[in-house]
């Protein structure tokens, strides 16, 4: 259960990036899974090269993620904003194919892991692995930082303004393309950070980003689109659900439950569970 809670906060972090991009520019970012995978391998490479503390390595990863996000925005996203949904879906998917293709050529599809262990914490008869706790804490810190950024700083406010009403924001002197590219960069950075955190928890391959991308979709939909903090909460809920169900049935049933829930929630509450309450 508690373990589910910890892993769930990492799901939440991954979904926040997706949710932010969706909310601000109405683009479903299909590069998300590839970026998560890049985050995993980034951690693997950095950890191998510098042997620094993984949670310190998170910072350069986020920096690279921001840059990469801005580059991808200008290559693939900028031209399709405002065109039919299909176009942005396809262009992000094309970028996804390119990244996965390069990743497969470099690292093949065999599993890797980051060999790093923090001492666990024992409470009564339960032991929590240190990595899980640290990952959850890191995810929470990043999530809160993003929330503060969006609420309190000027660029953050500009992002929210553009997502509320693009023309009005433009009239107030906000350069919406700059804002969009930054927002996309932040979204990608979030995906990469969550990938880096996942890398400290489980073994991974270049293709495992796909699983987390799908989980991110589930979480984003549960939370309602474009609600980053809601995504964090929904991520934790999803983790809890996984943790709570595991003792009672085989793990292979979990995806069925998740995706059935996903479709049902989509159809019943297209604005998300939290969206419904807020509206």
């Amino acid at each position, binding site marked *: 259960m508690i373990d589910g809670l910890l892993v769930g906060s990492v799901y939440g972090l991954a979904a926040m990036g997706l949710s932010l991009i*969706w909310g601000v520019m*109405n683009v*479903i970012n299909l590069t998300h899974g590839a970026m998560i995978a890049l985050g995993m391998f980034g951690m693997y490479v950095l950890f191998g090269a510098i042997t620094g503390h993984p949670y310190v390595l998170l910072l350069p990863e986020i920096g690279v993620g921001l840059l990469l996000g801005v580059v991808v925005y200008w*290559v*693939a996203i900028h*031209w*399709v904003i405002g*065109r*039919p*949904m*299909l*176009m942005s*879906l*396809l*262009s992000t*998917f*094309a*970028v*996804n*194919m*390119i990244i*996965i*293709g*390069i990743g*497969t*050529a470099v690292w093949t599809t065999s599993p890797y892991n980051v060999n790093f262990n923090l001492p666990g914490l024992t409470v009564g008869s339960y032991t929590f692995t240190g990595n899980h706790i640290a990952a959850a804490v890191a995810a929470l810190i990043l999530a809160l930082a993003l929330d503060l950024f969006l609420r309190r700083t000027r660029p953050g406010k500009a992002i929210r303004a553009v997502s509320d009403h693009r023309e009005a924001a433009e009239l107030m002197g906000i350069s919406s393309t700059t804002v969009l590219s930054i927002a996309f960069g932040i979204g990608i950075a979030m995906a990469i950070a969550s990938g880096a955190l996942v890398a400290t928890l489980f073994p991974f391959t270049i293709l495992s980003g*796909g699983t987390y991308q*799908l989980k991110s*979709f*589930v979480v984003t*939909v549960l939370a309602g689109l474009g609600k980053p903090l809601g995504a964090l909460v929904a991520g934790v809920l999803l983790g809890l659900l996984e943790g709570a169900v595991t003792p009672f049935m*085989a793990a*292979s*049933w*979990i*995806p*069925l439950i*998740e*995706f*059935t829930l*996903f*479709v049902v929630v*989509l*159809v019943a509450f*297209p604005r998300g569970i939290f969206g419904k309450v807020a509206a």
Partner: protein
Amino acid sequence: MILRRPSFWLILILSAAFVYLPLRGQNVPLREDLVLVAVAIILSSNLNLMIGYTGYVNFGHIVFYGLGGYIGLYLTTARGWNLVVAALAAGVAVSFLALLFGVGILRLRGAYFALATIGVLQAVQAFVINFDPWGRSTGMYMSFEAYKSWGGAMRALWLDYYLVIGVMALSLILSLAIKISKFGLGLFAIRENEDAASVLGVNTTVYKAIVYSVSAFLPAVAGALMFFKNGMIDPFVAFEFSLSLEGIVMLMLGGQGTVTGAALGAGMYEWLRSFLLTSPKLSDFQLVIAGGLLLVVVLFAPGGLIGWVYRLLPRARGVIE
């Protein structure tokens, strides 16, 4: 009348070529190449009914193919049904399921619908992985005996090939028939502006549900035929997400919304892939190149190859549809 359309005759000529070419000299390798192209054409042209005609992106189109394969293989091996009957039964069953799903998820629009189709695909796959009669994650195998009633495996495979070509021809004809019908016009209206279409008297809910269910039928039949040919099936092959996405790439490459575009894109993509896979230098970068190509098409030529031809030769619109 469909007979007056040049495209109709093009489709027949193409199908005849597919039948004739491998038959000459009993060329089995060519047949195996062509059957993949035919399946690609079946998938992309039925996907075109949703994406190109109606404007609804279906990411989980492969679910029809996989379910058809499962039902077909189950009926032929466990129940001993005739292949043709089993394939048709698979088509009907999957269409019916699609109608049920469709009524639910077609209330969603745009991106929400696209996401829901991913959800349906993953949920069905997860269900099949846990479904005992269908062999859970190991899938099902067909004994060699099953081919006996067809006069041996060799004859059975040839027959199966012709059936697949038949389904391919039907898919293209179906696309054409829908395109020139009133039903097709309704779909185009939904694509352009769903609210306006509904105000003007198009029953959008019914139209969408029907086209979703129709687009499931032939892929399911093709799935039943193909997995009969392969002799085995498992949930990871049957419901492969990337195959679903490749269908979209093919469609974009050729030109969405056109009958020939779907076929052309499928053929080109299959050719490109076999070229890349066999080239020693490029085989690692197959995905990269396909992705780059897709990006270029999306950014610079959203009409695909056929859209480009239309722009060069506006008159071609009447001939190539």
